């Protein structure tokens, strides 16, 4: 009878562990996107401490929103963009984000550029007046583009030259993810809780995953044809995963698809033969900037850039090939699952 009791106990435990009482999550809208921050750990669902941490992390993102927005009329960026070349003093968060943006623009040789606000507004993708602008208009908008036009003068002082217009949308979600990580590290020193941050398609996975062996987090890389589904997974820990693709924000005119990732050199949506680029990195801001830059560079140049700079990236091409850089294998566990959907993994 003892043996039977032991067997029963084992079976009951089996069912108990697989249940999910280990997540406490908060869903909210911020930075023009849907966000979900999950605090995970033993008994998180009923824990007040976990709930408090989740709320605190959400608040951190909400505080960042005005600091990174350029559309709110009371924001620093709005003021800066309308200062007509005068020096502006901006908030600490804003200054740090601009400095990051400039750093990654330099790193990528301008393939990622934070000064494309005028161009983005001109195309109006995801607004009611999305359209293909005339060549004249594009050249006009391009005249202010160039990260060299940003002057960082220290002490929160910034000046924009040549009519450049700042847009931190390209790194905003990444910057927010890094801030969530920093807030979690500062707040939860005992290491009780782990955090899975999903900020509008960007993912940050910090700490041990209590529900999986090895404590890793399995992140799916979206199928460009059906973004609810995925073509591959990466198992990561204490890393951010970011994807840029042509499939979610676009409009069609005369049978041609115009997406939202612009080539700073042409002012048109980048036509590099890629559907999406995913970067896995310790810094979500860097990953955010790099996905855009690599998408603009295209497969060949992008792969070379990654090899030179030790970047873990996954490229999905329009001709249904999936490429990974060497660093992917070193940083995480990559699993290709796109065979059934007609993709091949080119190693």
């Amino acid at each position: 009878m003892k043996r039977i009791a032991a067997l029963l106990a084992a079976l009951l435990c089996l069912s108990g562990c697989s249940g999910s009482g280990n997540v406490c999550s908060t869903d909210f809208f911020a930075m023009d996107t849907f966000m979900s921050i999950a605090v995970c750990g033993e008994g998180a669902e009923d824990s007040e401490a976990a709930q408090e941490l989740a709320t605190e992390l959400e608040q951190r993102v909400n505080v960042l929103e005005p600091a990174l927005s350029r559309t709110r009329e009371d924001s620093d960026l709005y003021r800066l963009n309308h200062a007509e070349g005068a020096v502006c003093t901006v908030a600490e968060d804003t200054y740090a984000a601009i400095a990051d943006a400039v750093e990654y623009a330099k790193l990528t040789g301008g393939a990622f550029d934070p000064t494309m606000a005028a161009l983005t507004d001109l195309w109006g993708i995801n607004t009611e007046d999305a359209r293909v602008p005339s060549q004249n208009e594009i050249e006009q908008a391009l005249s202010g583009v160039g990260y060299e036009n940003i002057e960082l003068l220290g002490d929160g002082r910034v000046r924009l030259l040549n009519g450049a217009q700042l847009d931190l949308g390209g790194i905003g979600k990444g910057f927010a993810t890094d801030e969530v990580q920093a807030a979690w590290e500062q707040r939860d020193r005992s290491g009780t809780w782990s955090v899975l941050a999903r900020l509008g398609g960007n993912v940050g996975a910090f700490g041990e995953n209590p529900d999986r062996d090895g404590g890793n987090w399995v992140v799916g890389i979206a199928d460009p044809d059906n973004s609810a589904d995925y073509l591959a997974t990466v198992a990561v820990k204490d890393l951010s995963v970011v994807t840029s693709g042509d499939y979610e924000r676009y409009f069609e005119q005369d049978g041609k698809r115009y997406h939202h990732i612009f080539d700073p050199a042409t002012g048109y949506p980048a036509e590099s033969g890629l559907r999406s680029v995913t970067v896995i990195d310790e810094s979500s801001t860097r990953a955010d900037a790099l996905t855009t830059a690599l998408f603009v560079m295209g497969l060949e140049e992008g792969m070379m850039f990654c090899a030179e700079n030790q970047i873990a990236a996954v490229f999905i091409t329009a001709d249904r090939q999936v490429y990974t850089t060497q660093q992917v294998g070193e940083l995480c566990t990559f699993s290709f699952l796109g065979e059934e959907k007609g993709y091949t993994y080119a190693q």
Partner: protein
Amino acid sequence: MRSRMKWGDAVIIGAVLLVAAALAAVLAMQAVGDRLYAEVWKDGSLVERVALEEQTDRTIELDGHNTVVLLGKTAKMQYADCRDQVCVRTGTLTRAGQVAVCLPNRVVLKITGGQSDIDAIVS
């Protein structure tokens, strides 16, 4: 005859049946735990939570702005009157953790419950 029943026989038979019943109960409990739910949220509050079964066939209208279709063990945003159509393009949701979001209308369709192979999707 060595087949004359003793009290111990009843104990053995009882134990076997008990283990069978307990195992069946645990398996049934797990099956319930694996059940998928479709949740429809609007402006941060839950509008509808539906258990997804093989025979599920439901259409949920949200004031004419969004239409959610639940069919079998899948859910999708069939229609949205918004400008960007990101939620409609997200496609059909079949696994726990998948989300289709209509940003302009602040509508979220997501699948919860069950066990998923993945924790998140980057897109």
